[in-house]
């Protein structure tokens, strides 16, 4: 089932203009510009310490840029209240240990928070949304189980269900596949892809370049605190870029299914 209604909307929903951010005068991001639209699955890639997490924090409004601006749905991010922002955009955090014995259903229900007023309980309409989100991510059978007893892959799917229940047009995934085995990585990315196909803008910070190339419509490559490339995966994952930004000597091939294949050869030493 493909819903293309959002995709025809021409305006960009998330725009970054000459964004810069420094930690104690050490630049983390410099002059970052991009413009993202609904229906895209964007991969945010780059070596460790390239500023991916910082960019996500800026997009979520958790840190303020030193210069430049972010606008979401045409509104400057700084003008949007936290609660209103949570109706536009949400984050699926990196798999974090959740210690508390909330049930799967209760965690998914937290996604309804920005839509409920203070004393308003979760209503019948919300319950239907919650149920639907759990079914999409295949955790409906776990509904009554405490989250602290789930496996890493299950927990990640619960957090994605929460993001779906939140019904935001934009979803950020922070290394959502980092601690998962290959099968669960695939599941999570397929889920991300299907959300983009439903018309959402999905931005996934991701380490695995082959996975990023395979699933994403577009890759943003952050390195040395700048946005070095913003293009189709085949144009971003090149031998030159891998050598220059990842210090990796590798061969980039196409496999029999015309999928990108990265064959690492050696780490490039000491060229900083």
């Amino acid at each position, binding site marked *: 089932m493909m819903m293309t209604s959002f995709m025809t909307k021409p305006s960009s929903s998330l725009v970054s203009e000459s964004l810069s951010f420094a930690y104690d005068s050490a630049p983390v991001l410099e002059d970052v510009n991009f413009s993202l639209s609904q229906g895209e699955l964007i991969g945010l890639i780059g070596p460790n310490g390239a500023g991916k997490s910082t960019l996500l924090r800026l997009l*979520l409004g*958790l*840190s303020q840029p030193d210069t430049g601006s972010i606008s979401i749905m045409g509104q400057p991010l700084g003008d949007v*209240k*936290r*609660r*209103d*922002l*949570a*109706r536009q955009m*949400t*984050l*699926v*955090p990196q798999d*974090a240990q*959740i210690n*508390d*014995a*909330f049930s799967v259903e*209760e*965690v998914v229900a*937290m*996604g309804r*928070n*920005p839509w*409920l007023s*203070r*004393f308003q309980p979760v209503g019948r309409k919300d319950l239907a949304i919650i149920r639907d989100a759990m079914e999409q991510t295949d955790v409906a059978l776990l509904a009554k189980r405490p989250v602290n007893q789930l496996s890493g892959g299950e927990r990640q799917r619960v957090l994605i269900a*929460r*993001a779906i229940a*939140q019904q935001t047009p934009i979803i950020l995934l922070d290394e959502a596949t980092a601690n998962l085995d290959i099968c669960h990585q695939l599941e999570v990315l397929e889920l991300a892809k299907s959300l983009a196909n439903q018309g959402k803008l999905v931005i996934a910070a991701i380490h695995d370049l082959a996975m990023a190339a395979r699933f994403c419509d577009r890759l943003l490559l952050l390195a040395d605190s700048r946005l070095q490339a913003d293009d189709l995966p085949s144009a971003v994952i090149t031998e030159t870029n891998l050598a220059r930004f990842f210090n990796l000597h590798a061969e980039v091939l196409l496999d029999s299914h015309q999928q990108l294949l990265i064959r690492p050869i050696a780490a490039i030493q000491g060229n900083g």
Partner: protein
Amino acid sequence: MKNVPFPLLFMLISALLILGIIVAVIIGPASISALEVLQALLNGISGGLLQGLVSDIALWQQTIIDQVRLPRVLTAVLVGASLAVCGAVLQGLFRNPLASPSVLGVSSGASLGAVVAIFLGLAASTLWVLPLFAFLGAAVTLLVVYQIATYRGHTPMGTLLLAGVAVGAFNVAMSSLILALSLQNWEVGRTIVYWTMGGLDGRGWHHVLLILPIFIVAFTVMMSFERDLDILLMGEIHANAVGVDVPKVRLILLLVTALLTGCAVSVAGGIGFVGLVVPHMIRLLVGPHHRKLLPLSAMAGALILVIADLMVRSGTSDTSIPLGVITASMGAPFFLFLLFKQRKLMRG
């Protein structure tokens, strides 16, 4: 552990609390029979309308019930409920079962504020000066502790608790200094010592009326944040993602907690362990949901303090044990028991 159903626990604790209140009003040095106490209470409730019908009990008996025992027991109810509910909120806010008004230095801050008020001779002027200073002491302590432990929007819990312990120790030192300075003035020194020991001797209706409105307001505010508190247990990043304005929610709840703790401390002095143990115990029984945790903690805190005060009063008048000593000696072993139990669970 399987959770106990909320309605069951709610009814059980309410029943015990009502029973506790009645027993606490019945027991006392002046011999008034249980029947007479019930009559006096009925008279009180009906505003004297039924006086003729119920029966006539002596005026002195009515006065003791109305003006001495009942307000004292109700003060115990409100102070216990306040401390326990503040502990529950702080434990949720800081995602740490060790957080409580006393561990974070809030209680000692409130004490310091109150001691300053007594030292400056302001406390004698009006009833509201003491709680106001106690609130200021509590609020300043909480904000200082929070600021020390917060760096770039992050508040690591270990740092927070250590900061609480350090600032709390400073508060205690300052209180002792002021006490030492005021020893020459016998009257002020005596008032401070008497006050810091804590307890509910001689607490009357004005104390009930002081803490009741603040409790109602604070509890309502806390309940209105029950969902935010649940979400905060998942971690700050989760809370932000689902639209909880973390700094704002923290600030509001910290201020409300400081206000209520300050008020409770100004009425009853330093009473430890209620705020630490009660919410912990209730959480073990009903799980982490603040919707259930806050009301049950309040009721259980009230019950425990009524019982503790009953134990204080049942001692002879010349060897009465301070209330804080009783709550600590009931609370500390229980807390250790919890620690051991948790250790066993972790070992599997």
